[in-house]
């Protein structure tokens, strides 16, 4: 794996807690260390704190207690090194904007520049990112709302890649795309993970089938498995212990069979 040698973890979280209202905790005393070059999936049911954890990493939220660092810096200060692909639903669906202009939006240094015009070099960067994401050049001048869900997903990935990030973060990347789009997404992840640290947030357990190196299970607490498998403890955190109606071993076997997931513990 061709990642530049560094002992600084991509993500370092220590004893972090967070709540939106002050009374109902979303995350409680969580610890997490993610090495550079990892491919991590953060899974958990709806409302478990996955997206909250992601926003803390991006510096969009601040913890009530504890510490979080991204590449050794406080989140917000090192965001140039992070490429973020939000849920596709966060963007306006029928906005008058072309594929190229969406990707150019990802160049932070141009984002707040006082001019309408992009330079040739910037367009070259955008084109390179679009090529990496597998978008055909004939689509560069097409309006984004004229693309399929899978194509739009790739454009947003190109937007995240255009500034050459070291960490790529996806929020529910497969929630709004069809099975073919999901297949293409996982193919792209296989290519990108060679040179990047990747975090994928999803409530879909089948996403762990895409050869992740780390799985983090979140449901107010956090469990991190560096072997890329689901454990008994993780499933219990996700779904609760149902041993009185379904012994855990049998339950885990059913889940792993249905989802075709590697299991341990």
């Amino acid at each position, binding site marked *: 794996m061709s990642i530049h040698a560094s002992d600084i973890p991509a993500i370092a979280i220590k004893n972090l807690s967070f709540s939106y209202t002050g009374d109902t905790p979303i995350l409680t005393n969580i610890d997490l260390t993610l090495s550079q070059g990892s491919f991590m999936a953060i899974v958990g049911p709806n409302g478990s704190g996955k997206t909250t954890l992601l926003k803390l990493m991006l510096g*969009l939220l601040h913890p009530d207690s504890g510490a979080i660092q991204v590449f050794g810096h406080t989140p917000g200060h090192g965001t140039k090194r992070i490429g*973020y692909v939000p849920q596709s639903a966060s*963007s*306006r669906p029928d906005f*008058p*904007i*072309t594929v190229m202009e969406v990707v150019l*939006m990802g160049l932070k240094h141009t984002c707040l520049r006082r001019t309408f015009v992009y330079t040739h070099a910037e367009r070259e960067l955008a084109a390179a990112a679009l090529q990496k994401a597998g978008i055909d050049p004939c689509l560069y001048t097409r309006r984004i709302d004229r693309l399929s869900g899978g194509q739009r997903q790739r454009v947003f990935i190109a937007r995240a890649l255009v500034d050459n990030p070291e960490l790529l973060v996806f929020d529910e990347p497969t929630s709004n795309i069809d099975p073919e789009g999901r297949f293409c997404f996982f193919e792209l992840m296989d290519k990108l993970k060679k040179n990047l640290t990747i975090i994928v947030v999803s409530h879909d357990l089948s996403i762990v089938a895409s050869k992740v190196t780390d799985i983090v299970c979140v449901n107010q607490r956090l469990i991190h498995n560096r072997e890329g498998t689901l454990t008994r403890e993780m499933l219990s955190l996700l779904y609760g212990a149902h041993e009185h109606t379904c012994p855990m071993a049998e339950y885990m076997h059913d889940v792993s069979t249905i989802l075709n997931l590697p299991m341990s513990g």
Partner: protein
Amino acid sequence: MFEALAHEFMQNALLAGILAGIVCGMIGSLVVVNRQVFLAGGIAHSAYGGIGLAFFFGLPVMPCAMGFTLFASAIMAGVTLKNPQRSDTIIGVLWAAGMALGIILLDITPGYNVDLMSYLFGSILTVPRSEIWIMVGLVIAIIIAITLFYREFLILAFDPEFARTQGVHVGLMHFVQLAMVALSVVMIIQVVGLILVIALLTIPPYIAGRTSRSLFSMMIQASLWGIVFCTAGMALSYTYNITTGAAIIAVATVTFFLVLAFDALKPKTRG
């Protein structure tokens, strides 16, 4: 109609229509892409409170209305940022409260007051040359603001969540945007009145947005449509002796439905 342009009041009306068209195109585009039509309506109707204050205290109407509307827009901006789930209720309250305040103040203002209808439905033919200069200044200020903050407006409108990660001051830009809406609305009230201002803010951008490939081109096209509607409406009003504001909106509305029909009937293609 061309012989009528020899008169200063008609020249002022035409200039006011053109300037309002430009503003509608630019600000209306931001209103439409940000899905803030109801918010813009709330700001427009609350402006009536400013008009009432102007007459009650004997102040110039346009500056006073602008000041009051800026204040109302700041409250609405704060509410929509802090509590978006409840914002429609607050907007509705301010909408009605502004109207009620204006009507009450006009009722208790001694002496003869201007016809209320002129602010509800517009009075483009009575716009004086002095206010044309204020409108010119406003248009220039809005063009400068949009030019300087275009990228922020663009990214905020397209993807607010992503905008935060790019360092855009989302809250500040929201206030700036609504302040521009407030100033524009007061200007457009002169042309079509506050009842119909929403139509002029939304129809030209809607028509332009269907085919534009950028927010910038949407603004340009919408401004041109706004100018066409205003001048065509004035021509109709002059020819058939009907209320100018309503004529402008009638032209815009007919065009809107023709465009809808055209879109429904044409074969669907990607592009």
